[in-house]
């Protein structure tokens, strides 16, 4: 007992000191970095955010296209991600042995593909005709392949030492990343401006197959993947967060090269692209080169924003996924988008309830009752550009059920609505956030990602640094208020994996 008391005293003292002093100390670090970030916008609307960091002679690039699966409509789900794959296929200059000859065959293929699809859609199909056309299509594909310099775009960058070449698609964005030795800044400018000026979606049909394999790999062969897809679909009945980023299989089977081309025209105008560049570069040189290389991309109208807003939920929803798997349970409540004033308090709430070994869910479900081996809550699911969910999920221990976990999670939710969180819990969140940002800033690539995300989704990159003030200002009262406002039974969706017999 004596030990424990001393510990608590120490803790209280420690918290009183750090909560007051130290966050302002870190704030100075943030102010210094903030003053070094520079921004330049080209006439066509393309934005460059640059931070010089001379730790090592390397530089990271992050092209943030403000388009994700939430911009998709019925029939073309998964097209944002498919387009991301196609953006590695080269241009009129890169990836081809003779673009003119190649282009002719690609057009023939598109036309033939349309014919095949039209024939297949007929009430009474002529299977012989289809077979004939398919054979011709395969011949054309092989002819086109003769002109392809396979994977040349990636090869050229990797040859110059690109260790970070990759891309990601989410519900909200498509992001292209590179990391090069810093003397290759201009090379990146040349390659990347060509990439978004003259992309050629060659080898389209095989790449579509790859994406279908990716869907099988990430979603269809994984019980958790199936659960997340169905749970999200249930929680969003109208807003396009409804469908998964990878898209429906039947859409993937039918999306055409023209669909991708149209989608590119609509969403890859320079005013929809934001570039973060962090590393051993001179800001002035970056801006100069950006003008030279990227201002040639013609400007266009800003794409229309997503129209659909998720309507209010009328009652609890529940989905069940049957799979050959032990149980997993996930539960979510509707929450506002990342720009909403309540968002920081909601983050704090999710952190206090379910992040870390001293969080409430871990203490109760894992350590104390031992009904789960993991119990976590996170906000901003599946994205945060639009109104989204705060989710709670649990992995029941062997012999325990989802129902037991749900009941205990519900108890914790009721508790946080009634009682104030403790000062220790608030400090844990606040300091944790600061430490988290500092850790991200240690990597050029992650810093570039953070700057572009903050600028596009929150509306201003400066908020990345200013949020520290917002975080400091959160009170126990704020958390209680948002818990009562958003954790409403009517607005709850539950998804469970049940063992398939």
């Amino acid at each position, binding site marked *: 007992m004596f*030990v424990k008391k001393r510990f608590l005293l120490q*803790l209280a003292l*420690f918290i009183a000191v*750090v909560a007051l002093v*130290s966050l302002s*100390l870190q704030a100075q*670090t943030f102010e210094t970095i903030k003053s070094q970030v520079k921004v330049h916008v080209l006439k066509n609307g393309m934005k460059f955010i640059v931070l010089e960091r*001379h*730790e*090592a*002679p*390397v530089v990271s690039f992050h092209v943030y296209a403000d388009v994700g699966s939430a911009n998709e409509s019925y029939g073309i789900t998964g097209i944002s991600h498919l387009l991301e794959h196609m953006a590695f296929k080269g241009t009129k*200059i*890169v990836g081809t042995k003779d673009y003119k000859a190649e282009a002719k065959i690609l057009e023939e293929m598109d036309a033939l593909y349309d014919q095949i699809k039209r024939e297949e859609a007929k009430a009474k199909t002529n299977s012989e005709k289809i077979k004939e056309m398919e054979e011709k299509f395969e011949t054309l594909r092989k002819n086109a392949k003769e002109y392809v310099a*396979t*994977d040349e775009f990636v090869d*050229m960058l*990797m*040859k*110059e*030492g690109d260790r970070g070449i990759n891309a990601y698609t989410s519900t909200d964005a498509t992001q292209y990343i590179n990391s090069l*030795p810093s*003397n290759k800044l*201009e*090379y990146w400018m*040349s390659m990347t401006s060509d990439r978004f000026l003259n992309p050629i979606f060659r080898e389209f*049909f095989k790449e*579509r*197959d*790859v994406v*279908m*394999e990716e869907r*099988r790999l990430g979603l*269809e*062969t*994984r*019980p958790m993947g199936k659960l997340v897809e169905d749970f999200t679909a249930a929680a969003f009945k109208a807003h396009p967060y409804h469908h998964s980023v990878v898209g429906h299989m039947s859409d993937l089977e039918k999306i055409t090269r023209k669909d991708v081309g149209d989608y590119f025209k609509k969403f890859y105008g320079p005013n929809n692209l934001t570039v973060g560049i962090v590393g051993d570069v001179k800001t002035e040189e970056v801006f100069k080169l950006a003008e*030279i*290389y990227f201002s*040639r991309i013609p400007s266009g109208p800003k794409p229309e924003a997503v129209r659909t807003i998720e309507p209010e939920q009328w009652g609890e929803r529940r989905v069940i996924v049957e*799979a*050959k*798997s*032990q149980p997993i349970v996930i539960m979510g409540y509707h929450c506002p988008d990342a720009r909403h004033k309540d968002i920081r308090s909601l983050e704090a709430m999710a952190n206090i309830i379910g992040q*870390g*070994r*001293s969080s409430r869910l871990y*203490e109760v479900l894992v*350590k104390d009752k*031992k009904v789960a*081996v993991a119990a976590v809550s996170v906000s901003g699911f599946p994205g945060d550009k639009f109104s989204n969910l705060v989710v709670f999920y649990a992995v029941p*221990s*062997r012999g325990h059920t989802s129902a037991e976990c749900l009941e205990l999670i519900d108890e914790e939710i009721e508790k946080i609505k009634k009682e104030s969180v403790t000062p220790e819990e608030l400090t*844990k969140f606040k*300091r*944790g956030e*600061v430490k988290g940002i*500092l850790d991200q*800033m240690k990597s*050029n690539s992650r810093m570039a990602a953070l700057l572009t995300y903050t600028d596009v989704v929150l509306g201003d990159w400066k908020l990345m640094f200013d949020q520290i003030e917002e975080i400091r200002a959160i009170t126990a009262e704020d958390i209680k208020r948002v818990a009562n406002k958003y954790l409403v039974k009517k607005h709850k969706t539950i998804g469970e994996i049940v063992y398939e017999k």
Partner: protein
Amino acid sequence: MKKQRTLLKLFFILCLLVFISGMSVFAQKSPKDKFIFPTLNPINMPKVETVKLKNGMKLFLVEDHEYPTIDMRAMVRVGSVFEPTAEIGLASITGSVLRTGGTTSMTGDEIDKELETMAASVSTGIGQTSGYIMVSVLKEDINRALEILADILMNPVFQEDKIRLAQIQQKTAISRRNDDIGGIAYREFDKIIYGKDSPYARHPEYVTIEAVTRDDIVGFYKKYFYPNNTTVAIWGDFEIKDMIARVKKNLEKWEAAKVEIPPLPKVSYEFKYTVNFIDKPDVNQSNILLGHIGGLMDNPDYPALSVMNSILSNERMFKKIRIDEGLAYSVWGRYGAGYQVPGAFSCGAQTKSESTVYAIELMLKELKKIREEDVTDEELAKAKDEYLNSFVFNFDSKAKVVNRLMTYDFFEYPLNFMEKVKKGIEKVSKKDVRRVAQKYLRPDKVQILVVGKKESFDKPLSTLGEVNVIDIKIPPLKSKKKK
């Protein structure tokens, strides 16, 4: 005449263009133009200080004043390969309960709370042939974090309820280990390569987890956790002298002892061709792994093997099976090499059930090809350029540099090992690639594993050879009485 006029017109247009857009038209380079890259700024090699404390603990320190944080990573000579066969899981439980099970002055839960409240993390764990300790903390909390760390390392009490918790977590993991097809494939492939009872492939069962007692855990900890068996890397916002003093103050009282590390179990491998299958009727994609035993990193052929790996994976498997055929999202082929224990040579792909056998045939074809024909000049140049031009990324953070040095030291590799590999790679020729492919790859003696739904396969697996069906049923703890 006509030609001259055209030229004149062209000149005029060019002048106009220059006028309109400044120098930019001429400064712009097409991706395929010749680029002359400016000299790369020099790499600032961080100064790494090495110290040995009186109790034998070795420190590698480097200052990094960019952000106000401090990180540590320690490696301990211990491993699950040393746990008894009847208690598989003992090492893993010891590694986690060391941190979660409290000390003589604080309970595990109190430690959790205090660390998280100051945004610090301390974690411990034991892998196959090494243990780790990690600390990450805001600079101003380093003293308290070191106190807690010292307490955990010197005075752990391994509370019973946290042992039970770790056992529940292990048993839950066992009960879930056949839910994901990827997990099944990797686990069973290791057993095929190293042997199902090998310390490098075996895994816990309910009965081996139940067998673990607190005494066993304390005994395992007491056998290996000593300062003279521990190497530590520290990096962050501190002065080296000052940090050494702080570490000494907290950790020099940790008493050394004579530690007897058993020799690492030997890997014996017999090359043979086998076809293995695990039935998973609820999936529409097969998980394929094939290969045989690999080697060690200190092999003089390691640089040539690295170049071969790059060509086999990126040039051959990826281009053929993913790009040209669209058969898989991820596909690779690489000869694995470990510091002390031979790695595995493995090729892998996940493809729809209907192309399972076809994909395997293509993979085997690529393996044969790299042995039978020289790689092209372009492939060789690309693989070497990739490595050499991205070499600078090995120095892009001080954390990377200091951790690498510690790791080399821990595994008794020369501290300049990476530079030696680089020199080796510079010299690798087409002949070398062919030679190591012939010496180390045995496509006729690979062991193939397929996890998937056999009804949908393009051809029966038996077209590849006699099929050995692997049963992955989880052995129950006790035979259940019939109702």
